[in-house]
């Protein structure tokens, strides 16, 4: 087992904080962020004084109207006199932020990095920010799902998957959410029939196969090996060791691009799995937290990142392998379909993967999870970030 990229110092997640995901009009942006920051520091047994650097993850500032929010949030994040970097790579940003934090530790530039992520779209006009026509583009009136839906249709066309696969994924994730008290969407009585009978929004995508828009925040603390051992001895809570991590980007619009199976996603996963010494991902991983905003993206990403053979991702769903209690539960937290604070959505995937191997996932803990994967993507499936975390030191 090689574990992690050759020669790199070990890094681990030692603290996780998350807010409840919902429409949160009772708190300010700073208050929402502070909830997760305080939670992550408490989990790690640290105070603001212990943090060396902060990385902030956030989706477009036009969503809630605050430009460069790292400035306004400096006080809420405890950032005074600290280095703060605000990364932005579309929806994958939370994953990029976590990886950048790990890089800062590995580079010897920080010992304890706080990664903060949030979105408070109820604060602004999200639909306006997303649906404003781009200059020089004809307004097609397609809406957010109008981008992903044709890609889904192409996947179905290529794979020959039956239509109930999308319904089943929606049921799996919503049932998972009933075991996660922080999840926005709580539908304990969901069934395949209810998904099938829900309104068609962007054919072939139905209402219950789509993600919500949520307010929410998340924060994690990333440290090096010695610090992780010290903290875990002090708190009695184990670290999640990073076994492999990677990011990849590809241009969105060039002639001949495959958006159903983007090469950047495949190469990103292959790189992280190679670092982790993983050769049979589906067998060697115990759970996956994937960025699935519409139910059909479960089979699409399973294939893209190598958890299933090309064209066979839907069979994995159909077999029940990805449901809670299956061989490879996908999104035991309920996933993006059950809560979507866009700026934090990617970091929540990375954090939930960590909580599983720390054994701290509560009611949605996957029994015996030893190694898990956290995944985030953004843009027109152009930006990809992924990490593998585990119980054992890599």
């Amino acid at each position: 087992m090689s574990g992690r990229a050759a020669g790199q110092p070990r890094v681990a997640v030692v603290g996780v904080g998350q807010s409840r995901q919902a429409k949160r009009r009772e708190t300010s942006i700073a208050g929402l962020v502070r909830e997760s920051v305080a939670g992550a520091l408490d989990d790690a047994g640290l105070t603001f004084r212990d943090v060396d650097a902060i990385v902030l993850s956030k989706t477009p500032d036009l969503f809630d109207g605050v430009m460069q929010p790292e400035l306004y949030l400096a006080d809420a994040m405890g950032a005074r006199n600290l280095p703060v970097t605000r990364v932005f790579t579309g929806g994958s940003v939370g994953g990029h932020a976590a990886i950048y934090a790990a890089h800062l530790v590995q580079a010897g530039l920080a010992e304890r990095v706080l990664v903060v992520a949030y979105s408070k779209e109820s604060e602004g006009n999200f639909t306006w920010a997303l649906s404003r026509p781009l200059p020089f583009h004809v307004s097609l009136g397609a809406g957010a799902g109008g981008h992903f839906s044709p890609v889904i249709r192409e996947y179905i066309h290529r794979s020959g998957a039956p239509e109930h696969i999308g319904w089943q994924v929606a049921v799996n994730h919503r049932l998972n959410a009933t075991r996660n008290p922080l999840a926005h969407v709580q539908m304990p009585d969901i069934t395949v029939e209810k998904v099938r009978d829900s309104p068609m929004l962007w054919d072939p995508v139905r209402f219950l196969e789509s993600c919500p828009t949520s307010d929410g925040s998340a924060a994690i603390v990333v440290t090096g090996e010695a610090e992780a051992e010290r903290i875990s001895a002090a708190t009695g809570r184990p670290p999640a060791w990073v076994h492999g991590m990677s990011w990849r980007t590809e241009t969105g619009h060039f002639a001949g691009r495959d958006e159903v199976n983007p090469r950047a996603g495949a190469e990103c996963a292959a790189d992280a799995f190679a670092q982790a010494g993983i050769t049979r991902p589906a067998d060697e991983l115990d759970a996956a937290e994937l960025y699935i905003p519409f139910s059909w993206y479960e089979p699409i990403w399973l294939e893209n990142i190598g958890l299933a053979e090309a064209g066979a991702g839907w069979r994995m769903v159909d077999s029940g392998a990805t449901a809670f209690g299956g061989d490879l539960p996908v999104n035991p937290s309920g996933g993006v379909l059950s809560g979507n604070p866009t700026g934090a959505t990617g970091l929540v995937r990375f954090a939930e993967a960590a909580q599983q191997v720390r054994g701290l996932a509560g009611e949605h803990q996957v029994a015996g999870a030893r190694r898990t994967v956290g995944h985030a993507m953004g843009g027109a499936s152009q930006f990809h970030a992924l990490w593998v975390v585990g119980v054992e030191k890599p």
Partner: protein
Amino acid sequence: MSRALVAADLPEPVATIAAPFRVDYTYVAGVGRSTYLRGMAEGRFLARECPGCGQVYFPAPEQCARCLTGLLPPSEIPGTGTVSTFCIVNLPFPGQLFTPPYVVGHLNLDGTGNRLMHRIMEVEPADVTVGMAVEPVWAPRAEWEPSLASVRYFRPTDPALRAPLPAEVVPAEAAPGGADA
């Protein structure tokens, strides 16, 4: 003498404040995009080929996004193509131009390699298929503008597949520059 304030003396807490703001922007089309936009105003599809990889773009940027080579001068393509994938928009939302359901497709225009997104109309949504041949329907000449809105929509090339256009579509789309300003 004043007594100490108690909670009942205080006004209702402020739960939210409205702070709308407005920013006016000038957008710059750029040299490459201007070529295609001018073509639109003239009722022509102007595509450009990459001398590096041979791919043909419509709409074309100034350089190939995959090999960074400057594209060749524009040449006209017919604008016909095939549906590579599509979705049927069933969701009503504010500011919508058409009454759902309507079809938005990824189109492969003949002779090009990148995808163009546009509406597919004059067809029952249920009759649209991947691979279906389509042709452009231009707005009346007086309404041509430097925008893809000069092409009102695409429709099946095969007349047998066509269905009448919903009535409400025509006036909404005919507003010059409306949706795209």
